[in-house]
């Protein structure tokens, strides 16, 4: 997930900039003008987890399986699968008529190469890769996945809804390592829209056309599952960096749809009768405060708990939702509220937060010796920057020796990868947010998992947590998984690898001439049409 950079100048290009020279559009062709959350600069949804690249990925590629709005897994490119009696062999068969945008058919070998590449980079994919013995091509349209041990979530893994999404690419493209991004000329899709590489201008526009040879499933669409019927001949992304400008463009009808509306501008748009404010991504975004577990003082669980107890989620949430309680939910959970595992433990460990007195007691108990705390905070991300300021103010109140280091995002992402001690270029705390959907189960949840040095920045290490996760991956039934998820949640609140800061929602805005916009985990291009 890359953050939306509303920083001035990050990217420019306006509604009027739409009008750069382009091929003539035949009369009657329908065009959808969409303002994405950020400039599209990376074309490989496996190399990066940038949300904007994931969203473009849904236009261009299709997946073998997909989640519906109830988080149930459905076959998408797959016609179906059979599982052997010992659960160690899955045979997946492809639907008829699947074609890549270069006209070649989608074959089993393409799927295998794509899964392999994805499984070398994605956390859920790595879990899968660890149990795969081999992939075997059965025919052009079916292949077998042989497992070292049962992996009941195989289809769910291949339906992963958010970065990295296991999109199916041609074998020759998927052959390169995941660390080497595919280039703009290698974007050969399997999905409902074709990416027009020639019309792409960084910071200005990206253009997609309907891929007429795409065969949608017959079912009604639900999120990324079901029939992906695109009702526009052409979809143009107009990158508008300035939110005020984007709002103006939507009001004047220069664009049809603005993906993420700046919370402060919602009242302005809501007052316009031609504009509809949609729910947007229903799983929202989860703010989080991440500790560096390698060095004092946050190698001490008591201090981590103290910080958790001092957190006032509503302050963080108000700062990023324009002070509108309709746009956030208190979330005492490592999973988003409203998803399967998003249920706070009982009793709620954060029920009394903010409780500064209790926090101070814990700090005393921990014998905090004045070790320096460095918060690294980006100056150029308005949706993260306030988190750092609020934490800084809170920790000062707790009497901790805290320093706020504010740099641009480019420096923050480099520094948080540093495992050096705090005073040698290291760090103690950073903040970020996650798309709720990307934390929807334990296996994909980096803010909770404890892989240690191989894991997410902060390097929380917990063997019990990893054992629970292993159990979750192989648990035979949903009920078992549920119970394990709750245990992981409880363990998380004991160990506090991360402090959840709340769940907030960013609304979407579109012209009232559009119908069928899906409020999903991504702004899907299908189903929407002009009334």
């Amino acid at each position, binding site marked *: 997930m890359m953050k939306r950079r*509303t*920083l*001035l*100048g990050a990217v420019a290009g306006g509604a009027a900039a739409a009008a750069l020279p382009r091929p003539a559009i035949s009369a009657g062709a329908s065009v959808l003008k969409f303002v994405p959350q950020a400039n599209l600069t990376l074309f490989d949804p496996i190399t990066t987890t940038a949300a904007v690249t994931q969203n473009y990925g849904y236009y261009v590629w299709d997946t073998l399986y997909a989640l519906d709005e109830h988080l149930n897994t459905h076959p998408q490119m797959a016609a179906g699968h059979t599982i052997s009696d010992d659960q160690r062999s899955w045979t997946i068969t492809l639907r008829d008529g699947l074609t890549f945008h270069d006209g070649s058919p989608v074959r089993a070998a393409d799927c295998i190469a794509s899964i392999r590449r994805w499984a070398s980079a994605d956390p859920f994919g790595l879990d899968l890769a660890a149990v795969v013995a081999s992939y075997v091509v059965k025919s052009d349209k079916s292949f077998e996945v042989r497992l070292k041990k049962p992996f009941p979530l195989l289809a769910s893994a291949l339906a992963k809804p958010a970065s990295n999404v296991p999109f199916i690419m041609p074998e020759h493209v998927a052959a390169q390592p995941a660390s080497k991004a595919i280039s703009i000329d290698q974007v050969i899709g399997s999905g409902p829209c074709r990416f027009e590489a020639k019309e792409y201008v960084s910071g200005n526009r990206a253009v997609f056309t309907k891929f007429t040879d795409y065969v949608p499933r017959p079912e009604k669409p639900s999120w990324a599952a079901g029939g992906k019927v695109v009702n526009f001949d052409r979809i143009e992304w107009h990158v508008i960096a*300035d*939110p*005020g400008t984007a*709002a*103006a463009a939507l009001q004047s009808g220069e664009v049809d749809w603005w993906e993420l509306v*700046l919370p*402060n*501008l919602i*009242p*302005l748009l809501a007052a316009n009768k031609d504009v509809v404010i949609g729910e947007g991504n229903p799983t929202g975004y989860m703010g989080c405060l991440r500790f560096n577990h390698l060095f004092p003082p946050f190698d001490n669980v008591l201090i981590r708990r103290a910080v958790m107890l001092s957190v006032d989620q*509503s*302050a963080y949430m*108000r*700062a990023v939702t*324009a*002070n509108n309680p309709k746009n956030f939910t208190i979330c005492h959970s490592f999973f988003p509220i409203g998803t399967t595992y998003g249920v706070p433990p009982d009793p709620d460990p954060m029920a009394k937060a903010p409780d500064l007195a209790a926090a101070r007691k814990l700090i005393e108990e921990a014998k905090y010796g004045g070790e320096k705390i460095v918060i690294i*905070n980006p*100056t*150029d991300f*308005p949706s993260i*920057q*306030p988190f750092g*300021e*609020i934490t*800084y*103010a809170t920790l000062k109140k707790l009497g901790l020796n805290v320093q*706020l*280091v*504010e*740099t*641009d995002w*480019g*420096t923050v992402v480099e520094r948080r990868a540093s495992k050096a001690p705090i005073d040698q270029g290291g760090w103690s705390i950073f903040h970020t947010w996650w798309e709720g959907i990307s934390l929807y189960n334990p296996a994909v949840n980096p803010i909770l998992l404890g892989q240690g040095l191989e894991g997410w920045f902060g390097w929380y290490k917990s063997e019990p947590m990893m054992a629970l996760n292993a159990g979750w991956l192989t648990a035979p039934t949903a009920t078992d998984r549920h119970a394990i998820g709750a245990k992981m949640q409880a363990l998380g609140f004991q160990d506090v690898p991360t402090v959840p800061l709340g769940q907030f929602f960013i609304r979407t805005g579109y012209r009232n001439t559009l119908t069928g916009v899906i409020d999903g985990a991504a702004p899907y291009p299908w189903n929407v049409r002009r009334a």
Partner: protein
Amino acid sequence: MSEFALPEEAAALPEILPPAVRRGRVAGFVLRHPGIAIGGGLIAVMAVLAIAAPWLGTVDPQSLDPANMLIVPSAGHWFGTDMLGRDIYSRVIYGTRVSLVVGFVVALLASVIGMAIGLVSGFFRALDSVLMRIMDGILAIPSILLAIALMALTQGSVGNVIVAITISQVPQVARLVRGMVLGLREQPFVEAAIAAGTRTPRLIWRHIVPNTLAPVIVQATYVCAVAMIIEAILDFIGAGVPPIVPSWGNIMAEGRALWQVKPFIVFFPAFFLSVTVLAVNLLGDGLRDMLDPRLGSGK
């Protein structure tokens, strides 16, 4: 924004006020040098605001109050509040400190360093071409871009902003001083001093420096104005002092996305910034008139 200070040929401001009868020495000075009087007066006011900020009805400019965000100017918050509920009046008043410190320190540093480089260049031919090529190189990079790049590369802090802007401004002063040194060396009094066996350091100190001082001081005022503007632009772009620091550029950056609906957030810091830069420019023009009669108001 000013990329560079006015070159030598730049005109002085005419006297804005009509000539009037002398009334005492102060009044006389004010009438003869209205630029210095108005500019200096405004800067003095700003300096007072900066120093006395805590006692001017301000609250902690960093204290967040998300429950009271985006309040329009009112009795409780004279200039309103920003997106995090901070009091804009307090932030604007405290912001005076950042602008003034950046402006004055950059002016001082750029003058001293530029003068040193200019003197060395003018006197030691061996070093001249190397130094001047480097100065040309820096000059060839637009100073805003140079400052943005330097800031992206360091941690945002007032000190680093000062260093970044100073680097981009030194070449101006260096070239100015070098040019003057080359001219002065041909002057009879300098030639006489050399003939009399005056050693170079003493020569520079006694004969050259005093004669370059006046133009450098005038130039310094323009550097000061430019530095304030660049600082605001850096903040505005998100590459300046950390957002938690109350500075005019930061306040404008925060208000930028909302300028259609809450224009007051941008307005107040913009007004203060413009007035301060104007004051510095007026002072500079006035000093030029006073220190260099040849470029006077042309009467």
